[in-house]
């Protein structure tokens, strides 16, 4: 009896060990929360599936948690409850919040710890530089990156007897002055419209002309940064747009992108300034010939700087097990492979993040078939990024953009002069910056 008891115990233990062994063979789950929906979400799922099929050790589970703001919020709430994912996608304006949070595992460190020797110089520098720290170490993995370009209605340009703009040499704003005049005279309802006014008409305008958006290298070199937009160039640019409103050469169609985008697609506006990630929408909905050119520059800017990116990056979060981080590193490495990057670019329009993927796309002749897809990449890569053009690193940047939106709207509806609005926006934003500085001291 005693022996039988022992035997039972033994077999039970064996069963437990066996069971545990089986559990060990189960792949380690890696959670990724993201904001990609619709077609982008489908491409993302393809990439995740490719990774899961490529090996048995890890299984990436990608979950859509809503839009950009909602994803960051979900991450914040989950982190407080210690139920956060391994990878969190955060939009570019949330970069400062994420990097200062203390809740992240910097990507350069993760990759080094896990033994990946990555040659970061093989990445698109204008993309990478948005997400590096003051020592040029990469904090988060760039994922979906875009930039702003100029879409134009070829039919309306032809009707106005205009030459088609070059895909590499930007128009000057003086030429734009003439072009919009002719367009409106030839019957275009509106000359030019813009999406994301702060991003395109102030942030990118400043970067392209190599003027600071904020002091301390746009905030990269210290929390004691202040807004630098109160300068004659920005004010003059806004004054010009405001003056164009009088004869419909410029029209304000609302925040974000929907209004401006639909105005252009409806054929009511001849020129649209919008992110390259809007290509899909224009492709699908525009019933006329259209094309893309770089953003215009001032005539005195002989060597325009690169434009800056928008989009989001992947942050690895603290507080998971070592063997799980191995999987995270493997996955991030997998995503950066040329095949994945090419797929991502072809299906979404977002930039490939490595030069290798870009070169392969060129060799495949992808850009010969669809030349407008390359305009944004070229604009981003035309120079080496400077301190003014590599990106913007501000605390409470979301609220600062909101302040800019508000003040710019007061310009457009004539309640404030551009000089007044920019002065007010500067003062209000500086207050936010001080508040952020105090919180993060």
């Amino acid at each position: 009896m005693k022996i039988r008891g022992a035997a039972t115990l033994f077999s039970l233990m064996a069963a437990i060990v066996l069971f545990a062994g089986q559990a060990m063979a189960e792949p380690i789950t890696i959670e990724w929360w993201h904001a990609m929906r619709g077609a982008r979400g489908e491409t993302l799922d393809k990439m995740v599936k490719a990774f899961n099929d490529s090996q048995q050790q890890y299984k990436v589970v990608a979950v859509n948690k809503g839009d950009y703001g909602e994803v960051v919020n979900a991450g914040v709430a989950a982190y407080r409850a210690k139920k956060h994912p391994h990878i969190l996608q955060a939009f570019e304006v949330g970069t400062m919040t994420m990097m200062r949070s203390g809740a992240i595992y910097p990507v350069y460190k993760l990759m080094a710890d896990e033994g990946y020797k990555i040659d970061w110089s093989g990445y698109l520098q204008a993309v990478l530089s948005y997400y590096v720290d003051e020592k040029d170490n990469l904090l988060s993995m760039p994922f979906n990156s875009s930039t702003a370009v100029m879409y134009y209605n070829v039919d309306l340009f032809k009707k106005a007897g205009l030459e088609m703009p070059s895909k590499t040499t930007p128009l000057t704003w003086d030429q734009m002055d003439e072009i919009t005049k002719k367009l409106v005279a030839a019957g275009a309802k509106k000359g030019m419209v813009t999406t994301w006014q702060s991003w395109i008409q102030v942030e990118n305008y400043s970067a392209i002309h190599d003027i600071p958006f904020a002091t301390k290298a746009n905030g990269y070199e210290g929390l004691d940064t202040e807004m630098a937009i109160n300068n004659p160039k920005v004010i003059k640019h806004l004054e010009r747009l405001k003056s164009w409103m009088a004869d419909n050469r410029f029209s304000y169609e609302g925040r974000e992108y929907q209004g401006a985008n639909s105005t252009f697609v409806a054929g009511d506006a001849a020129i649209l300034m919008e992110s390259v990630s809007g290509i899909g929408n224009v492709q699908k909905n525009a019933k006329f010939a259209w094309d893309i050119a770089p953003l215009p520059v001032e005539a005195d800017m002989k060597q325009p700087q690169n434009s800056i990116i928008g989009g989001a990056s992947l942050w690895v979060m603290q507080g998971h097990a070592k063997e799980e981080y191995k999987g995270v590193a493997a996955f991030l490495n997998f995503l950066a492979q040329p095949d994945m990057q090419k797929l991502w670019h072809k299906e979404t329009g977002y930039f490939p993040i490595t030069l290798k993927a870009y070169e392969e796309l060129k060799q495949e002749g992808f850009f010969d078939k669809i030349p407008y897809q390359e305009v944004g990449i070229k604009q981003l890569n035309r120079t080496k990024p400077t301190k003014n053009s590599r990106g913007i690193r501000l605390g409470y940047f979301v609220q600062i953009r909101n302040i800019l939106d508000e003040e710019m709207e007061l310009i457009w509806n004539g309640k404030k002069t551009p000089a007044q609005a920019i002065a007010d926006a500067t003062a209000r934003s500086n207050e936010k910056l001080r508040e952020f500085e105090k919180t993060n001291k």
Partner: protein
Amino acid sequence: MIKRSHFSSKGLAYLLITPQVLVTLAFFYWPAVQGLVQSLMLSDPFGLKSQFVWFENFQRIFTDPLYLKSIGITLFFSLMTAFISLAVGLFLGSMANRALRAKALLRTLLIWPYAVAPAISGILWLFLLHPSYGVVAYFLREVVGMNWNPVLNGNDALFLVIIASAWKQISYNFVFFMAGLQAIPHSLVEAAAIDGAGPLRRFWVITFPLLSPTIFFLTVMNIIYAFFETFGVIHTVTQGGPGGATNTLVYKVYQDGFIGLNMGASAAQSLVLMALIITITVLQFRYVEKKVQYTM
């Protein structure tokens, strides 16, 4: 007089109210206390760094001229929304009550919009009235020749969000007014009619006073609705623009807290919002309720 119920032992009574008390504590008092604590702190969103700053967050919002302006906008917005939805709801309720045929169908159709979420209602109105793609906006511009542009013009934007918010609440009010109207004895109205009172006079002298409990209740509910739940409409239609013209308090709380992740400022604003709504409700109960006739 309300009849008092008696329990043989106090224990059972306490036991019976425990779930309710627990729910209230967990879902109301606990978050409220958290909000209070947060409003006195400067903290990063992940909760790893916080410091106690006394009333700095409050000081900051009350020295911000735009915040004070936002209080004004909120009051105007809420009063207009409540007034329009009450007036239209009452009008439709009285008309539907007098309808001779298809009463049930009419009622169903009029209650329908209440099933629409505020954000969807905002989008619906936006599709009608957006200057770039709105059908009605096109009509206003091309046929009427009106310079309608809520994207640029603050008053137009405010009008648009008021209409979208009120429209949704009309159905809610309609249901209550219908019920209230049906509770009014026909004999009273008929007696007045025999005495020679016209429909308008009958409405003002008999129906309206007898409806006053319903009207009072709905006023309180509508103002609370306009303060808190219209966030979805504003978010989809104007995002607080143009130039802050439709930036109501609750939308600012969302902007600063959920999008901007500025917890302290957002918590301080929600406390101010709470104080404001409590004040308004207390005032209503003290001064307006006196005019309400609860018994016939």
